[in-house]
């Protein structure tokens, strides 16, 4: 079944969508698509069928998001913890993923028409090599598209993502691109797998569980969390509207909290820069305390240098990540 479902909303759905769009709309929604197996049990299907229904629901949800002008969606498809499941189930899921990515490559013209950019986030080297190659092809083929974005978290947990970001910064230090004192909240954010996306405005988890299960813990610190009891394969347009309404009700208070956080972040960066400058002046000064003007000049100079360093490092990181995908693409596909 296809990734892209064509078709308009019906009249009632269209009206409701227009009413919602009169208010603030989330630009990035994240989904924890929970409940496939319980759905399968409920309908007396095979587990694998439950997962397939789940995928269909994903395609449908993307269609709704397009009509609601939500340009970016992130989904939790497979957690590193899910490797603990039975070999049969894991193999089944890998096979499903392979089929879906193959299908995606077949639909590349349609994806280009709709401007869909697919990104896959996770510790991809944990996956079977043939799946990695398919993923790489999908990512590289759709890289330039920019109308809407789908981020699929596969072989992902938030802790691994954060740890990887720290490792990348440490790599930057080893390469002499950045200093340890350059490490900051915003730099860490730039090193996450999700660095090309803004933070999610809304996180929805289905099937009634009320936990985050190691998903986007860093990025959703100031997002609206909505827990819904419907099972994922039964998710409806109205469930999505309910969640967006929740987002709209919380919008002002969350914006305030985000602003506050941003202010503190900026203050912290300023203090960190000041501390570095003070240390530098102490070491290179001639014993006399520097005057305010000299300190200010030194601060501005230091900040500019730091920002340049960080830019160069991020360029190098981007290059490293792009090479990872293009190297996989140039490998001969395994039969």
């Amino acid at each position: 079944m296809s990734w892209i479902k064509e078709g308009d909303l019906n009249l009632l759905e269209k009206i409701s969508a227009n009413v919602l769009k009169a208010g603030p709309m989330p630009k990035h929604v994240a989904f924890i698509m929970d409940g496939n197996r319980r759905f399968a049990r409920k309908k007396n299907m095979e587990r694998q069928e439950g997962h397939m229904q789940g995928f269909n629901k994903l395609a449908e949800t993307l269609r709704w998001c397009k009509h609601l002008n939500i340009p970016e969606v992130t989904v939790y498809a497979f957690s590193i913890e899910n490797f603990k499941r039975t070999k049969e189930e894991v193999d089944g899921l890998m096979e499903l993923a392979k089929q879906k990515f193959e299908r995606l490559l077949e639909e590349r013209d349609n994806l280009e028409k709709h401007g869909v950019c697919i990104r896959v986030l996770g510790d991809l080297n944990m996956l079977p090599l043939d799946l990695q190659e398919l993923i790489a092809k999908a990512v590289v083929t759709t890289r330039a598209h920019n109308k809407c974005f789908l981020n699929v978290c596969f072989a992902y947990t938030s802790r691994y993502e954060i740890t990887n970001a720290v490792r990348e910064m440490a790599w930057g230090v080893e390469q002499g691109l950045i200093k340890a004192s350059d490490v900051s909240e915003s730099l860490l954010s730039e090193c996450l797998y999700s660095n090309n996306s803004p933070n999610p405005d809304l996180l929805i988890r289905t099937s009634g569980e009320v936990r985050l299960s190691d998903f986007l813990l860093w990025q959703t610190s100031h997002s609206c969390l909505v827990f819904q009891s419907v099972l994922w394969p039964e998710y409806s347009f109205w469930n999505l509207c309910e969640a967006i309404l929740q987002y709209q009700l919380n919008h002002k208070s969350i914006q305030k909290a985000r602003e506050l956080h941003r202010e503190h972040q900026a203050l912290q960066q300023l203090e960190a820069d000041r501390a570095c400058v003070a240390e530098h002046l102490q070491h290179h000064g001639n014993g006399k305390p520097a005057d305010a003007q000299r300190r200010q000049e030194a601060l501005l100079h230091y900040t500019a240098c730091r920002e340049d360093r960080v830019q160069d490092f991020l360029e190098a990181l981007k290059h490293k990540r792009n090479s990872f995908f293009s190297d996989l693409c140039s490998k001969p596909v395994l039969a």
Partner: protein
Amino acid sequence: MALLYGLLWRLLLLLVHVNTALVSWLRVRLRSWKGRLWERAVAALLLPVALAGFPDQHKKLNHNPDATANPVTGNRGDGRRARWLSDGKALEKLPVHVGLLVAEEEPSYSDIANLVVWCMAVGISYVSVYDNHGIFRKNNSRLLEEILRQQNLLGVDGSKYSIEFLSNGSDKHNDGKQSIVQAAQQICRSVENKERSSKDISVSMLDVLLRESKNIPDPDLVLKFGPVNSTLGFLPWHIRLTEFISLPSHRDVSYDNVLDALQRYASCQQRLGQ
């Protein structure tokens, strides 16, 4: 046309607010009635549970005719303490570490102190208190005083529990993200000094640093107070498996509210990926 939709949207929000107000009013009125009546009233009014915020904790209502709404002094202390302890033991599972997340303005020290004392009395080993502005952390001595006072009022023996104030990292105003950044800086400094290589960095290394050599487990449960549906930056690293249960407000919160939430927690099943 856009104007019409704008008006309709405002009308929708108004309806939701009226709906929520009605729900809270009913909640208070029907608290003392049987649980079934509450469910029928809800069904009759066709109130979508989702619009009331996080899943309604009244699904498992516990009606205890002896329930006291507020702590009272006197020789009821012994009976209450024993009751709290037995309530804790009666639960299938009790969280080891509870987070109290105050997502509303103007925090009330006495109510939070009550919550902390009840948690301790029921058998919970660790309680964290967090709010978006860092008010409790900045005024932690005042909170400590309140807790000690409530302990005495409720007749809870303070010597059995130790209250340690754990700051989320340094003295500067920070939240969980900043402590992750500090751990990252520490690691990068050791890489700069050639004490370790970037390849050595693992999830467990970061985890150990973030525990700051105190063996406090991650929060099993967070009780969120207030209308804002967000974690507002609370300990992002530590809440990966934490259950979130929402209560409308921490002001005038009762012991029964807490027990309801703990019962809901006891029925949650964690599959841990499997």
